[in-house]
């Protein structure tokens, strides 16, 4: 979990259009890079991982306000290009079920696709010398951290959500509080307190989500390693 399923109608039109354009460009690259025979052979795996991602998202994690998504695991199994396609397929289906929206498929796919690509790169390239399960744990954690940070930044910039905690309205005027310079007593207005508290809560939820997903991927990889280790290796490693 690192992403919010952005619904329709909440982010400015320019941003979701940009999301679609960027996703389209990435998809074109993905389709070109994935060679015909590899694509045909890996299409069933792509579809299987898409189905698994959909199923896994429905598994409740007790009181935790998020779910697993297996995006990094998808990247590990099918590669970065087809992994992006798998994420697109999942987001199309999720948009019909209230998890995301039709206009935000592009931006939702970019955010999750980033996890797939980062996860694949970290697992197969940067950490290639490590043991499989430690690779999975680290790759998942880092990929989710990076993609979550970028996602939150993008959402914050596009909607000004980040701005909530740092300013308040006095009538028609915006008043920005410089919380670094002010005395603790002066700056303890309701808006500032709320802002710091809400950002802290978001950071805590994200960190928990990243940890849970990384641990889950680690355990799953440990299992698959015993049963079908060839699924976790690239063809060049076999």
């Amino acid at each position, binding site marked *: 979990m690192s992403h*919010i*399923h952005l*619904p*329709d*109608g*909440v*982010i400015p*039109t320019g941003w979701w259009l940009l999301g679609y354009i960027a996703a389209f460009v990435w*998809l074109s690259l993905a*389709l070109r890079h*994935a060679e015909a025979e590899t*694509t*045909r*052979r890996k*299409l*069933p*795996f*792509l*579809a*299987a*991982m*898409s*189905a*698994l991602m*959909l*199923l896994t*998202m*429905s*598994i409740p994690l007790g009181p935790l306000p998020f779910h697993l998504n297996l995006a990094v*695991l998808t990247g590990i*199994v099918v590669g970065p290009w087809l992994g992006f*396609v*798998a994420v697109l*397929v*999942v987001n199309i*289906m999720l948009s*019909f*079920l*209230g*998890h995301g*929206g*039709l*206009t935000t498929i592009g931006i939702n796919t970019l955010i999750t696709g980033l996890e797939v690509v980062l996860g694949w790169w970290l697992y197969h390239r940067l950490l290639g010398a490590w043991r499989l399960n430690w690779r999975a744990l680290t790759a998942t954690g880092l990929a989710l951290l990076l993609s979550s940070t970028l996602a939150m930044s993008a*959402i914050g910039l596009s*909607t*000004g*959500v980040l701005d*909530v905690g740092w*300013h308040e309205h006095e009538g028609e005027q915006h008043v920005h509080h410089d919380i670094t310079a002010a005395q603790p007593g002066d700056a303890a207005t309701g808006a500032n307190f709320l802002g710091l508290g*809400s950002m802290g809560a978001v950071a805590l939820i994200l960190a928990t989500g990243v940890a849970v997903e990384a641990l*889950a991927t680690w*355990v*799953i*990889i*440990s*299992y*698959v390693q015993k*049963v*079908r280790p060839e*699924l976790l290796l690239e063809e060049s490693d076999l």
Partner: protein
Amino acid sequence: MSLKLAQVDYIAVSQRSFLHMWPTMPKLSGSMILLVGIIAASNLRQGAVLLCLLIGLLLSARLPVWLFSLALYPAFFSIPFALAQLSTSCAAAIAVICKAVSAALLLALLVASTPYPQLFGAMARALPPLISDALFFAYRLFFITLGSIQRLLLSLRQRGAFGRRNFVWSCRAALHALGYLMVNTLSISQRLDQNYRLRGYGAKGCLTTEKVAWRAIDGVLLVTLAVLVGGVLWLG
């Protein structure tokens, strides 16, 4: 959510409402008109009218009321964005949530009144062959795997995998089950691929034979809908 997808799929193929009878392409076009209206809505009044219109469609088509619960997820996810509008006005914040809920309800109505072969078949005209085939494959595998996961969870529960005494052990058991499911699903997909290779499949998108049907009345309906949505936005 996976069970909801199964339930929605069943409603789409088994019920017969006026929404089900409307051909897929005109229905998709009508949905796009409504979606544009929802996104363009700039205040709570416009958003609320469109939401009421959709609820009216849900009730008049005699679709299950629980479909509305699919529209509640976006309400949760739109809260951060609504908070950003709270400093402007309370109505603006509620309008954000209203728009998100309306858009989700619209798509829920679409998918609950259109069997997936027709829906994906219509979408396949605009998607690359690989994506449209992946959509069909993934949807089919989802239902094959759904049965497996239900049986697996039952088996685990019967064998005491989810006891309250050892939380860590239970989590490990559940994740191993997920690993098993992953391996099993990949094996199934390989067997599917074997069978389809035998039948000549080459990832060139020839899984569906859905035809596009347009009638004169569909044009009239779409124009009426566009005028209605335009009227709501203009007068609201």
